[in-house]
C-alpha cells in the first residue's frame, strides 16, 4: 500500500510543464486551454489560464481520458466547445473499449491535481467514463481490415457537428456526426508518414498535414489550399487556435516557455497558418 501511494505521489509530482501540448492550444474569451499526456501512465492533464499570464500560473486538472504511445504516434484527439471537452480515449487498458472511446467531459466537473490522488483510481475513472457518441469511424475501419499501419485520427467540433478524419494504410476518410448519425466521405488515397491535425477555420474543417499542407475536407471532397513547407514537420509544432481573433498559428514546441504568457509567445514566435 505504501509503495502504491508513493508511486502515485511521484507521478503527481512528475506533472510539470515539460510535456508539450497535445496538438494544440485553444484561446477563447481571454483564456487558454491545452492538454498534456504523461507517457508513463497515459493520463491527460488539462491546463487553463489567462492568455496574458505566464503559462506556469495556469491551473492543472485531471482530464479523465488518455492515449497510448505507439510507433506511429497519434497525439490525443480533443477539442473544446462551450464548457466541455470532447476527446477520444485511446488509452491502453484492459477494460477500455475503443468503440466507446469518444467522451464528453464538462470542464467544471474536473478536479485540480493534488498529491492525494491515486493514479490507479484516476485511470479506472477514465475507463468508466460513458461514451458521448459511438466511435463509428473506428468500427468501420475495423470491419475493413485487421491491419493497422499509419493509423492516425483527429476530431474537431464545428457548431453542433463532430468531424473526424481517420487514416490507415495509405488512405483516409472524413466523417461527420450530426443530428444523431455519422456520415462519411469516400476513401481517399494518401500515404501518411506521421500524424495530422484537424482544426476549424472559418467554420470549415481543415486538415493540417505532417508537412504543413492545408486541406479543406468535407464529405463531398478534399481540396489542398496550401502546399507543404520545406523542412516542416507538424510534430515539432503546436497549433494555436485563437478563437477570439479568428486566427490559427503554429508555434514551435521548444519555444513554449512556461514563464511567458501565450500572448507574448504568439507575438514572438507564432506564425500564421
Amino acid at each position, binding site marked *: 500500500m505504501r509503495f502504491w501511494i508513493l508511486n502515485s505521489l511521484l507521478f503527481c509530482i512528475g506533472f510539470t510543464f515539460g510535456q508539450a501540448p497535445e496538438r494544440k492550444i485553444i484561446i477563447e474569451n481571454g483564456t487558454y486551454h491545452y492538454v498534456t499526456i504523461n507517457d508513463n*501512465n497515459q493520463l491527460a492533464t488539462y491546463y487553463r489560464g489567462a492568455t496574458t499570464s505566464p503559462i506556469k500560473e495556469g491551473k492543472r486538472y485531471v482530464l479523465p481520458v488518455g492515449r497510448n504511445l505507439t510507433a506511429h504516434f497519434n497525439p490525443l484527439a480533443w477539442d473544446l466547445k462551450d464548457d466541455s471537452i470532447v476527446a477520444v480515449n485511446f488509452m491502453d487498458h*484492459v477494460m477500455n473499449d*475503443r468503440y466507446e472511446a469518444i467522451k464528453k467531459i464538462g470542464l467544471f466537473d474536473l478536479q485540480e491535481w493534488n498529491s492525494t490522488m491515486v493514479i490507479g483510481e484516476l485511470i479506472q475513472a477514465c475507463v468508466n467514463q460513458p461514451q458521448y457518441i459511438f466511435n463509428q469511424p473506428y468500427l468501420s475501419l475495423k470491419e475493413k481490415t485487421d491491419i493497422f499501419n499509419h493509423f492516425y485520427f483527429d476530431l474537431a467540433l464545428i457548431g453542433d457537428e463532430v468531424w473526424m478524419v481517420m487514416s490507415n494504410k495509405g488512405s483516409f476518410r472524413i466523417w461527420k456526426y450530426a443530428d444523431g448519425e455519422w456520415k462519411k466521405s469516400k476513401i481517399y488515397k494518401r500515404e501518411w508518414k506521421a500524424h495530422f491535425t484537424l482544426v476549424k477555420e472559418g467554420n470549415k474543417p481543415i486538415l493540417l498535414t505532417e508537412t504543413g499542407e492545408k486541406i479543406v475536407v468535407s464529405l463531398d471532397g478534399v481540396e489542398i489550399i496550401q502546399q507543404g513547407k520545406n523542412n516542416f514537420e507538424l510534430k515539432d509544432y503546436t497549433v494555436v487556435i485563437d478563437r477570439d481573433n479568428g486566427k490559427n498559428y503554429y508555434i514551435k514546441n521548444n519555444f513554449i516557455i512556461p514563464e511567458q504568457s501565450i500572448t507574448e509567445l504568439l507575438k514572438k514566435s507564432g506564425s500564421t497558418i
Partner: protein
Amino acid sequence: MKLTDNIKKIGLSLIATIAVSYVYAQDFSYSSVSVEQATFTGGNLPIRRDEGGTFYGTPHWISGAENQVPVAYVSGSTARVNAHFKFTCENAPDSIMVRGIGPDGFDFEPRTVAVEEEAPGEYSFYYPSTYASTEFTAGESDFYKPFTIGWDVSFNDGEDWRNADSTRNSMYVTRDNPQSEAGHFKWYHSVYDISCRNADGWSTDEEIIAAVWDEYTDQVVLNYKDDSLHYYSPKNTYFTNLGGLLENRNAQCYTFAQLFLATIKIQGVVRTNNYVYITPVYSTTCGGYSVNRFLVKDWDFGTPTGSGCEAYPYENSYTSLLPYPYTDYNFITADVTDQTGIPGQCSDNPSSYFNNHQIALIDGVYYDACYGVTFESLEDIPYEAFDGWGFRYTSGGVTYARFTNDMDATELSQSITTF
C-alpha cells in the same frame, strides 16, 4: 671447460638473477594491484536502465561498486577494453606489462605501460584500449554473466605473469544489430538479458524466436536481477508499456506481448504486423448493449439469476471491482465466480475479466506471453482460454455485468500493428 670455470659461471649467473630480482620485485606485493575502472569501447551497444529508462554510462567496471554496468556488442564485432590500475610499492619500476585473460579465448594482448607515481608509494598505470584476440562468433547470439577478465602483470617483460585482479561485467551479444527504438520498444537492460540468456548460441530467426519463447513457457519471467516479472499480481496494476513492466515488475497484458517482441527485436529479428489487440467482435445484444467483455479461465458459473436477457442469463454486480489489497474481485452479487485457473507470469490467479488482450503474432502463430501459451488461430483462443462472454451497464451507481458461457455466442476480432 674446467670445473672451477663452471662454478664461476654459476656464481655469476646467480648474482645476476638476484640482482634482476631485486630491481623488479624488491618490495612489491601482487595483491596490492587492483583495477580501479574498466571501460569497453569499439562499437558496443547502448543499454537503458530498467529503472527510469536512462542509458548507462561509463566506466563499465568500478572497483567496489555494488552494480557494474552491462556491456553489449553485435556478433561479429570485437570487444575492446581499457583499464586503470593502481598499486602500492616502495620502489616501483618505470614500466610494467599487463594483459587480460577473458573467457573462451577472448584475451587482451600484453602491453607495456608506463607506471606513474600518484603519491609516495602509490602508483598507477593505464592499459590502453585494446581489442580482444578474437571476435564474437558472427551471426550468433552470446551471453556471459559475468564476462570475467583476469588481469595479469609481469615485471620481467612477460617471462612471468601473476594474476593481479579481475573485472566482471554482464556481456550480451546480439545476433544482428537491434532494431531501432520506436514507441515503447527501447533497449532496456532486461530486454538484452532475457533475450541473450535464452538465445545464447542460436543463429537463425526461428531458433532465436523458439529459444526466447522458452523464457515464457514456465510462467516465470525473470529480469536481469533474477527478480520475477508479474502479470497482475496484485490485480490493480495500471502499467501498460514495456518500461512500466520493467520498472515496476507488475503490469497488464500489453506489456508481456511487448516484452516478448522486444526480446526478439533486440536480436535484429524482423517481423512486421506482430502485435495483436484482441477484443470481442462488435455486436450488440439485449437492448443494444455492446458485447465487450470476456472471462479468461477459470470462472465457475452458478445458478443464473439475471432477468430480461436470456442470451446472457448470468449476472454479477459491483461498485468497486478491485478494492485493496487488489487480489480478488469484489462483487455485490455474483452468479459467476473467479477460480484459480490459467496461471500467468509469476501469478497464480491473475486478472481475468477483460475488454481486450494483447498477444504476439509471428509466422502465423499467436504467442500469448502473459500465460506462456500459443494458439494456431484466432478462432481457437476463446475455446481454449475463455469461460464466457459478457456485456455491462451501469444503473444507480452500480455496474451490472451479464455473462454467458456459450462460447459460440460471439467471437474475437483482432487489430494488428507492428511493435
